[in-house]
């Protein structure tokens, strides 16, 4: 078993789950089956992580099969220290999504589970792809299940939100496609990501392609001027949809910068860095202020995501080791803590069917266990020391101050805003006078919900107190990336 295709199995296992689901009728069997496949995938992801050699910067578990040889397209997958973190994150959130939709999805359960399983396969595939064409196909194919997840099982304005999400992402992705083809033609007719990284493109090609890629990734992140689809999509999506969006899809934009823009287009990255830092700073502050003004729980978290992802892109484009590792860690953190917050809000909404902050108060006295978790996730989101958010933001801020003091100051303001809106959210929801709900409409978390929340809480403390394994696993890959950037600069 020298060349056991572990990554292919990791990618396709959830999709295989679709086959038994097609023949099942009983809703509870369908749920268990979906859980079985996603959880098996999670265990597999752990196994891959255990066998991963954290000291090496090269791609591991590489598989390579020709797909369209006449155009140099192949099915090539592999992971390095960066992508393995996100495959793991995706696999972790997979079964949590299934559990989060256990009771909240009541219509077309089979179709919903199929969409989630397909989504899982595509997302893990995106993080593992070593061929640009494969990457694009998986990246774009995600639109179909995600469009359905938002549009079919979402809230009242779901259709509008789904179409908006689809068109924003599609327009960006198509420009990305043009950029990919330009790289293909300029880089010796290959879609192989590693060979393209080695090509030294001319500055004008780099700049053009950077701009084309920027649109696609900026929409996905989402960065400042093109973030408007996110609040709509988040508010209307079902809980599992929000978790996937916040936890994984937003990471893909930043991952795109990390995997393509920075190593393949180093000169252009340096050239556009002021623009990127500027947009990130605006996103941090503007997103923070918008979050401050929200009265809807999900909208508040959505805008806080814009602000937090601003930290990530800021970290990526300050080009020093601290900031880069902070950015990657922050991507992972944001997946955990924002995913957790959406899960927590979903649990609340399942019970009371309202997301207005003003409808809540004094939850601490009614549902104490829930409130502890909610408080923990809020603290992680505002980067309280001891939680994962602190480590990530600290690293990014240290890098930002190194680059430009004013940018650092703006980022600190953003971090302070996060404390303001998260604390005031926690205050009005958990503390204060008790709002009485009708009998039986609110109850504390059950076992199923507890497992999900606990799993996420473990990671919050783990990274917050002992981030070394996480930083260690990505360090060689980031070192290589810095080398590539340095050559260009």
């Amino acid at each position: 078993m020298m060349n056991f295709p572990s990554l292919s199995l990791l990618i396709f296992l959830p999709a295989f789950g679709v086959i038994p689901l097609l023949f099942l009728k009983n809703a509870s069997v369908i749920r268990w089956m979906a859980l079985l496949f996603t959880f098996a995938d999670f265990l597999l992801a752990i196994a891959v992580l255990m066998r991963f050699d954290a000291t090496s910067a090269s791609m591991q578990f590489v598989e390579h099969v020709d797909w369209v040889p006449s155009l140099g397209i192949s099915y090539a997958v592999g992971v390095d220290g960066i992508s393995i973190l996100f495959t793991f994150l995706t696999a972790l959130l997979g079964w949590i999504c299934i559990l989060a939709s256990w009771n909240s999805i009541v219509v077309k359960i089979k179709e919903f589970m199929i969409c989630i399983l397909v989504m899982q396969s595509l997302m893990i595939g995106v993080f593992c792809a070593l061929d640009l064409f494969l990457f694009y196909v998986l990246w774009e194919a995600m639109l179909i299940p995600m469009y359905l997840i938002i549009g079919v099982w979402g809230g009242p304005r779901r259709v509008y939100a789904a179409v908006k999400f689809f068109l924003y992402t599609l327009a960006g992705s198509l420009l990305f496609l043009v950029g990919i083809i330009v790289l293909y033609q300029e880089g010796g007719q290959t879609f192989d990501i590693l060979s393209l990284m080695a090509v030294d493109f001319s500055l004008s090609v780099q700049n053009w392609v950077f701009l084309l890629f920027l649109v696609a990734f900026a929409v996905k992140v989402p960065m400042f001027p093109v973030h408007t689809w996110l609040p709509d999509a988040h508010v209307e999506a079902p809980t599992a949809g929000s978790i996937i969006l916040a936890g994984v899809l937003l990471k893909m934009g930043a991952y795109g910068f990390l995997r393509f823009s920075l190593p393949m287009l180093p000169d252009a990255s340096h050239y556009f860095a002021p623009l990127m830092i500027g947009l990130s700073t605006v996103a941090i502050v503007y997103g923070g202020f918008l979050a401050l003004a929200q009265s809807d729980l999900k909208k508040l978290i959505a805008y806080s995501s814009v602000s937090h992802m601003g930290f990530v892109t800021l970290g990526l484009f300050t080009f020093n080791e601290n900031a880069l590792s902070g950015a990657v860690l922050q991507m992972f953190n944001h997946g955990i803590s924002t995913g957790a917050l959406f899960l927590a809000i979903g649990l609340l909404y399942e019970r009371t069917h309202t997301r207005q902050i003003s409808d809540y108060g004094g939850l601490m006295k009614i549902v104490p266990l829930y409130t502890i978790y909610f408080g923990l996730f809020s603290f992680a989101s505002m980067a309280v020391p001891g939680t994962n958010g602190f480590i990530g933001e600290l690293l990014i801020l240290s890098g930002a101050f190194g680059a430009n003091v004013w940018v650092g100051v703006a980022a600190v303001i953003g971090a302070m805003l996060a404390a303001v809106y998260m604390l005031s959210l926690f205050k009005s929801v958990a503390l204060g006078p008790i709002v009485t709900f009708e009998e039986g409409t609110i109850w504390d978390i059950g076992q199923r919900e507890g497992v999900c929340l606990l799993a996420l809480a473990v990671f919050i403390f783990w990274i917050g107190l002992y981030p070394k394994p996480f930083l260690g696993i990505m360090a060689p890959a980031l070192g290589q990336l810095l080398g590539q950037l340095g050559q260009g600069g």
Partner: protein
Amino acid sequence: MDKQLIIQSIIASSPEIIMIVGACLLLLGSVFPMHRLGSWLTVTSLVIILVAAFIALLLIDSPQSVYGDSFVVDPFALFFKAVILLAASLTILMSGQYLESENIVEGEYYVLILLATAGMMIMVSGQDLLVIYMGLELQALSFYVLVGYRRRVLQSNEAALKYVILGAVSSGIFLYGLSLIYGLTGTTQLGQMATVLSTSTTPDLMIVLAIIFMVVGLAFKVGAVPMHMWVPDVYEGAPTPITAFLSVGSKAAAFAILLRIFLEAMTPLAEIWTDIVILIAVATMALGSFVALVQTNIKRMLAYSSIAHAGFALLGFIAGSESGIASVMLYLLIYTFMNFGLFAVVILMQKEGAGRDQIDSYTGLATVHPRWALLTLIFLFSLAGIPPTAGFFAKFYILLALIEQGYVILAVIAVLLSAVAAYFYIRIVMLMYMKEPLHPFSLSRSSSLNLVLVITGIGTVGIGLAPDWFLEQAQRALFLGQTINSSTIIP
């Protein structure tokens, strides 16, 4: 003429001869009263097509130029013949049920389809302007009648009348362009024309005029702006299977002669026509994409969608390289599958009454018929160009060819317009999946229609996942002029 050459010519053109003789026999046979006329006609015409296809397949290893270099059998022509014959078979399979519901089961309908197919096959094999024009007219005249085949329906009559008048005018314009080019070069044979044009001095006004006339004539056939006006009305009025055939077969044949005339004979003049075609392509994509947004009738929407697709396919023609030609061919093959698939769904959904062909009638389909809805979703996403469907690969390869030639800005415009176009496809998905049904569905199912849906569904998904073999076929199918020297066979 040498006897041997005559026999060789007849063998090389035997698929076309079989189609035409078969059509005549079918016409005679359908006169006799028969118990199940519809099935008999379907089976017989399919057999004729299969025989012609089989013989065409035998010719694949012997590319040749016959009838005094006016008719070629090269991989390029055979690829297009395969597309056209596939389209004709799917049209016939789709027709049975439809004709019965319209109460127009008649032999002439099938005869005309066979004749139109033969006309297209002659077009794609034509190496001489006269042969090309003859095929074009045979095809066009058959379609004029087919479009008006729902005789008792006013819309169908209107469509036929519009198509005849506009078609005749455009044929006239095209013919005038041909006559000018003949006057300037002294030949109608494409190979000789290329030689004359490549040695001639600076192009004068007459050449520009001739090119404009020819481009305009062909723009009508592919439904490109500014000659697109007929498309929505004709698509709406024509019997639905004929609409599908028109949008795929007729367009494929027109693209074949566009590629052959301009890229084989007129390459020396490329700098004149490239700018014109770029303008046409962008205008066509833009108009098709934007106007389709506001359509409420699915056939009209598909008409504008087919205009937009024609604009996109023109991009491969603009690239003009070997991969450009191959990309157009692959695009048309894939378009055949996905477009026929969607038209088969339109026929499936067709019911009597006022709400006929309305996009709204797809509301809630996924709740009642999840399988049909899923199939429709695949066709729609393929037309929108979302991977992993074949429609994505078709667009991808055209963009690849286009960027290879340095047209990056054009590629950016094209993808942004196809993002606009995506909206009207996903709107139908939205209606099917995200709304509750308004009325009960009455599907007009039949086993032959199911077969069409299965074939097109497999094609749409299959080529998307494993495009390699199809891609190689398209890449291998070059013009005869580029593979063997046409002057080896002397008339």
